[in-house]
């Protein structure tokens, strides 16, 4: 049984990380040289050519397939974790049960590959 106290190191680490970022940013801001900037200076340098349009064009939907698949397998892995912890205890039955679970998902995955949903061109 893990008590909330066991997670204290994580909070510590979080605080240290945040503190480090804040500190370094603050110090560089204080001791670094200051430059005067204008709006023109802040624009992206495009070899002297005026910038046209927006960099954020709509991307191909293929990226979303990958992202969705990632989330789905993420969920699957979470289900495997409690099984893996007690792997020995469950024995053969647990193995079969897990294989049915994974087999179903594997069938889905084979479908996705066969359907060429992951092909890039």
């Amino acid at each position, binding site marked *: 049984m893990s008590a909330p106290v066991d997670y204290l190191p994580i909070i510590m680490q979080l605080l240290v990380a945040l503190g480090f970022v804040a500190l370094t940013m603050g110090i560089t801001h204080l001791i670094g040289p200051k430059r005067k900037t204008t709006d023109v200076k802040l624009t992206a340098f495009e070899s002297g050519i005026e910038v046209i349009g927006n960099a954020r064009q709509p991307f191909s939907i293929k990226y979303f397939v990958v992202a969705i698949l990632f989330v789905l397998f993420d969920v699957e892995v979470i289900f495997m974790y409690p099984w893996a912890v007690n792997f020995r205890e469950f024995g053969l039955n647990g193995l079969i049960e897990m294989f049915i679970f994974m087999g*179903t998902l594997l*069938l889905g995955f084979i*479908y996705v590959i*066969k*359907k060429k949903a992951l092909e890039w061109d």
Partner: protein
Amino acid sequence: MSTLIVISILAIVVLYLGLFKAKQALLPISVLGLVAALALAIMEWNSNAAPIFSGMMHFDNFAVAFSSICIITTILVFLLSKNYFEKISDNVAEYYTLILFALSGIIVMVSYHNLSMLFVGLEIMSVSLYILAGIKRKDFASNEAALKYFLMGAFSTGFLLFGIALIYGASKSFDLAVIAQYVIDRPTGIDPIFYVGLVLMIVGLCFKVGAAPFHFWTPDVYEGAPTLITAFMSTVVKIAGFAAFLRLFSICFAPLQDFWMPTLLVITILTLFVGNITALYQTNFKRMLAFSSISHAGYMLFAIVALGAASTNAIFIYAAAYAVSSITAFAVLMLVKAKTGSENFEDFNGLAKSNPFLAFALTVAMLSFAGIPLTAGFIGKFFVFNAALAQYHTWLVAIAVVNAIIGVFYYFKVIVAMYFKDNQTKQIATPAYFNFVLGVSLIITLVLGIYPSFITNLF
């Protein structure tokens, strides 16, 4: 249980058949598989006394009856799908697969004995429907329907889950039997969070079955989704929703009737009036069917309000009558739409001259919707009202009768259009599958209407 396994495996088989280009085999195999699943379900009639899988699922007679009616309706929908999906896309197998997966979720929903099963079943059903509503990827209305359905569905699932969590918090169990025992053990002093959980579950389930005031999504989704999917949603899915609703309330919450009855009563009356009065003003036939499905949800809620021994039977008969009539209506709508390109009432003008059989089938379906004697719809309404009268909800029945009369007006609009308005339309070619489905629905409607004793004493 075997029904569930057969349907799940069937879905995967169909998916892979599509992958290996066996397109001609998809429909026969789906239908054959469903017939096998149906046979397996009926074989379990009266054979399961206790829940299985550590109380997860109980395939009792209730589950057998509602699974059978859902499977039969799905078979009818499949028969209508011949050449329908091919027009939308090349990937036909996915549509069959998704419908079959939705059906497996529905089997879980009608046979659950544990709230976790209810949730998983509901999710399987809903998620596949979100996808199915949006299968016309280039059609704006279809996309809108899918997105709207998804947002509303996710929202309502949130309510349902919150309710389940609170009920668990009070009773420390997802198991229906344990929750029922918790209620029985405490004639007074049930924890307040139990009541709150109950209210949230009512809200979630009312969202799912499309009862007012949680019906906002229904018309847009039903209109935007492809007609065949709408047919599936407004029949099978609605029946499954009511089966789940009824199962939960009759097993767990029956002793608390004093608490939830007023809430459901208000919802029922609102649903009846909103559905019927809005349906009166529709010019689009599909949208009219969407609103009429809201009002039918109201009639079915009736039997839950008057929860008693007769409720299951009443909802079963009503659902059967409603399902076959809806299938007929949507089948005719699909044919008319394929012919004229739109779904308004004028498109039905003169149908009686050009296609007497179509017109007759649709007329019987509309009469059944309206609850005219000698059709199944009348028997359904009769049993539902009877269940309510048994509990002395006389004035509630009066309201329902008023609504039934309002319903007659808009159902007759289409009949009038078919028989008394002229239009030079050519004959619509009816494929054999359609004739078969229409014939079966017609026979079921009339047989149930004339000899209701077939299914009136099932439970």
